[in-house]
């Protein structure tokens, strides 16, 4: 019974989505406003029924209703409530249902945001969104049906994958990732609508920017949360391994970041319209490629739940989306004529262009490295992977150049300028750059790329801070406003959007420093300790004090209690664990991390043997890792601030452009 209610809701949403898509495209082609109204209603209908289907599944999970196939597959009575809720996305069918739920929220909000001011782009965009919704509705109703009826209802289920139960981050990472991945559907629809109507109005461009900022902010957090999860759960001591599933989350982030920046050029100068649309479209296509890679089982990971039938279906969807996008771009992009010529020479325009080139290069490098083993396996049936050195060697220089552009770009004026002006703007930041370099050399950093990165980071930090507070200083100087008044008026006025960008940049600079230092200056050793034995590692003395047992309903854990002394100071003991889940054959470790602003002490138990009383430890000291988490919070905040300023900002720029055009006449 409960299963059929769920199936009914899914079918209803599929019906709404497909009918709405047809109505929307008909409205666009025949220019009929009455059909647009129908499409809008169908869009809300899809959103409501799909959202309810998700709620219904959560209810089923909480009630241990094993007559629903998905609950029987991942549910278990003994699970904590939070694990039951997050089980919604812990396996294939549920995760696709959750995708539909997130899409429902996005489509509802986006449909509401579209007004008559968007012209015929309104039904065109709604049509694309609902076409995507139709595909996912079909996926949920067919190959990935989570609401199957179970005939012999079991009394209990196995529970979700233990690796996913192992840390609370599992509750946070997937919703952020879906917020990013699924959200790319909205700007994709808008970009296709721009191509279909052959017109990119400032209103439409503003909506594209806003709709890009939301998933960008989520994806920024999600990419790093994935790394944080790996760091806190997997126990090899790092946060990024260039694993295909990690790359899958990074790829659309790269193109979306490129799109956000080229959109600024499009907005200010009326250039690169087709390019910006291409970046938006690429971001969406890469999310679908990422979904294919992670969900089809071609790469094995915690994300590929099982060899499933949805792989080919997603591949077909990816093929159709790509074909439609390429055809639309090919035939219609000429309609998006530039309003002006691009500026050349040392201007901010050039910096934006360089930034976009570097991001595309980055995307390309990672994409090739990720897809290459698949192609080789498909063609020659030989298993291999592309080693980490490839990714490191290729992306480190690109990243360093990006940081260089991030520093120099905002220091450059828009349009052409004199040599004296350039000197005045570009020379002062060298001071902080030198300071950063000196600190790095003083603290024993010797890796050349890390030194280069820190030098550029110092430069970028100077420019970012200077530029972020420039309007504020101007205000205080010329209007003689006090700091508080100037700050609040600037921040809550039209200045927010600009400020938000520099907040995001500040986050990027910190992230670069954290990544460069932590990846080249961490130290590690492996050691087996008997009970009572100590080992010294750097400034730390670690003593294996004993083994503790922890019994929980869903797992039993062996805990190695490790006494920690730094110099002569006794610190809290660390407890790396080895967990045996009730439903699993193998045990899974959980590392213990002592997080600090300067360095993390990272202990991972490779094995804990009760009989011989030994523990095999991986000991690591990782500098500055926590700054990567802090940087991500700052970047995400920057994105969200930009999101909230977006509307107002777009109007201001629009007004300014009108004035410029008038002045030119």
């Amino acid at each position, binding site marked *: 019974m409960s299963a059929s209610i769920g199936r009914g809701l899914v079918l209803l949403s599929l019906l709404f989505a497909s009918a709405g898509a047809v109505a929307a495209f008909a409205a666009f082609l025949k220019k009929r406003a009455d059909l647009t109204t129908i499409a809008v209603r169908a869009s809300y209908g899809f959103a409501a029924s799909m959202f309810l289907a998700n709620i219904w599944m959560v209810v089923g999970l909480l009630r241990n209703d094993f007559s629903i196939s998905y609950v029987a597959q991942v549910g278990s009575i003994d699970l904590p409530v939070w694990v039951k809720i997050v089980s919604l996305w812990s396996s294939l069918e549920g995760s696709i249902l959750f995708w539909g739920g997130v899409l429902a929220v996005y489509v509802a909000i986006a449909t509401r945001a579209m007004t008559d001011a968007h012209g015929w782009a309104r039904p065109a965009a709604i049509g694309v969104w609902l076409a995507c919704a139709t595909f996912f509705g079909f996926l949920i109703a067919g190959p990935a049906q989570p609401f199957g009826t179970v005939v012999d209802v079991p009394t209990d289920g196995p529970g979700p994958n233990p690796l996913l139960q192992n840390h609370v981050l599992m509750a946070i990472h997937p919703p952020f990732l879906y917020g990013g991945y699924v959200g790319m559907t909205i700007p994709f629809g808008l970009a296709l609508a721009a191509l279909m109507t052959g017109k990119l109005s400032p209103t439409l461009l503003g909506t594209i920017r806003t709709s890009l900022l939301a998933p960008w902010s989520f994806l920024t957090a999600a990419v790093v949360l994935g790394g944080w999860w790996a760091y806190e759960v997997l126990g090899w001591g790092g946060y990024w391994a260039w694993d295909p599933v990690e790359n899958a989350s990074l790829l659309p982030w790269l193109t979306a970041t490129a799109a956000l920046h080229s959109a600024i050029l499009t907005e200010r100068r009326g250039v690169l319209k087709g390019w910006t649309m291409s970046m938006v479209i690429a971001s969406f296509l890469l999310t679908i490629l990422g979904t294919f890679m992670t969900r089809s089982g071609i790469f*094995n990971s915690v994300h590929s739940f099982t060899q499933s039938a949805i792989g080919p279906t997603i591949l077909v969807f990816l093929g159709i989306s790509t074909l439609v996008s390429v055809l639309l771009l090919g035939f219609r992009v000429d309609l998006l004529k530039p309003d002006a010529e691009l500026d050349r020479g040392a201007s901010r325009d050039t910096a934006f262009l360089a930034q976009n080139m570097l991001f595309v290069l980055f995307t390309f490098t990672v994409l090739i490295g990720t897809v290459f083993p698949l192609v080789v396996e498909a063609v020659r049936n030989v298993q291999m992977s592309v*080693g980490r*050195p490839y990714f490191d060697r290729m992306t480190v220089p690109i990243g360093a150049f990006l940081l260089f552009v991030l520093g120099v770009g905002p220091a450059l004026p828009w349009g052409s300028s004199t040599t004296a002006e350039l000197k005045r703007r570009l020379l002062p930041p060298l001071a902080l750059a030198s300071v950063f370099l000196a600190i790095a050399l003083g603290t024993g950093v010797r890796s050349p790329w890390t030194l280069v990165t820190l030098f550029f980071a110092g430069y970028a930090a100077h420019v970012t801070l200077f530029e972020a507070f420039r309007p504020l200083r101007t205000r205080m100087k010329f209007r003689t406003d006090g700091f508080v008044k100037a700050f609040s008026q600037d921040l809550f006025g039209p200045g927010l959007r600009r400020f938000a960008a520099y907040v995001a940049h500040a986050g990027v600079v910190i992230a670069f420093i954290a990544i460069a230092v932590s990846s080249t200056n961490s130290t590690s050793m492996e050691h087996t300790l008997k009970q009572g034995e100590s080992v010294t590692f750097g400034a730390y003395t670690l003593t294996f004090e004993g083994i503790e047992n922890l019994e929980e309903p869903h797992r039993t854990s062996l805990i190695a209690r490790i006494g920690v002394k730094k110099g002569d100071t006794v610190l809290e003991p660390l407890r790396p664990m080895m967990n045996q889940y009730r439903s699993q054959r193998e045990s899974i470790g959980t590392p213990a991390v002592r997080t600090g602003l300067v360095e993390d002490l990272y202990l991972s138990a490779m094995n804990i043997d009760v009989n011989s009383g030994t523990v095999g430890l991986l000991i690591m000291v990782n500098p500055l890792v926590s700054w990567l988490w802090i940087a991500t919070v700052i970047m995400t905040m920057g994105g969200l601030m930009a999101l909230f300023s977006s509307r107002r900002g777009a109007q201001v720029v629009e007004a300014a452009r009108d004035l410029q055009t008038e002045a030119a006449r």
Partner: protein
Amino acid sequence: MSSNDGKKRVALALGACAFAGTLLYFVVGGIGNNLVYYWGPTEVLAAGPKAKGASIRLGGLVEPGSIKQGQGSNMSFTVTDGKKSFPVRCTSVPPQMFREGIGVVVEGTVAPDGVFESHRLMVSHGNEYRAPDDPASIDLKKLMDSTDGMAGAEKK
């Protein structure tokens, strides 16, 4: 379209091709030098001297009776795929599940003395793969897959 526009387009296309070509050269070169081969003992033996120094993930079953504990965390054992076997020297602390007869994947390379030198030892994770009792029926691809993506990092 004026001829000036046409010339510009040709120049742009040529520039783009040159850019893409250079890029492709570096990317393909970069990949070619950093491939990690997924091999069983048979493939490693077949590769002969080519295996020395190459990055290899060697998969197979730990041959019963072959585990020898050395100094500290040093250890040696033999990996077999039922047809051929290959000696392994390992410096990393073994994971909890490590024992005779289990499916393992070791990462490293063949040292000059002909022994596989591993800096990383993984046992198969997940529930889908179970090591067979008869080593000849081992499915190497599944074994490799089962250790992929879990901690897919090479140690520095």
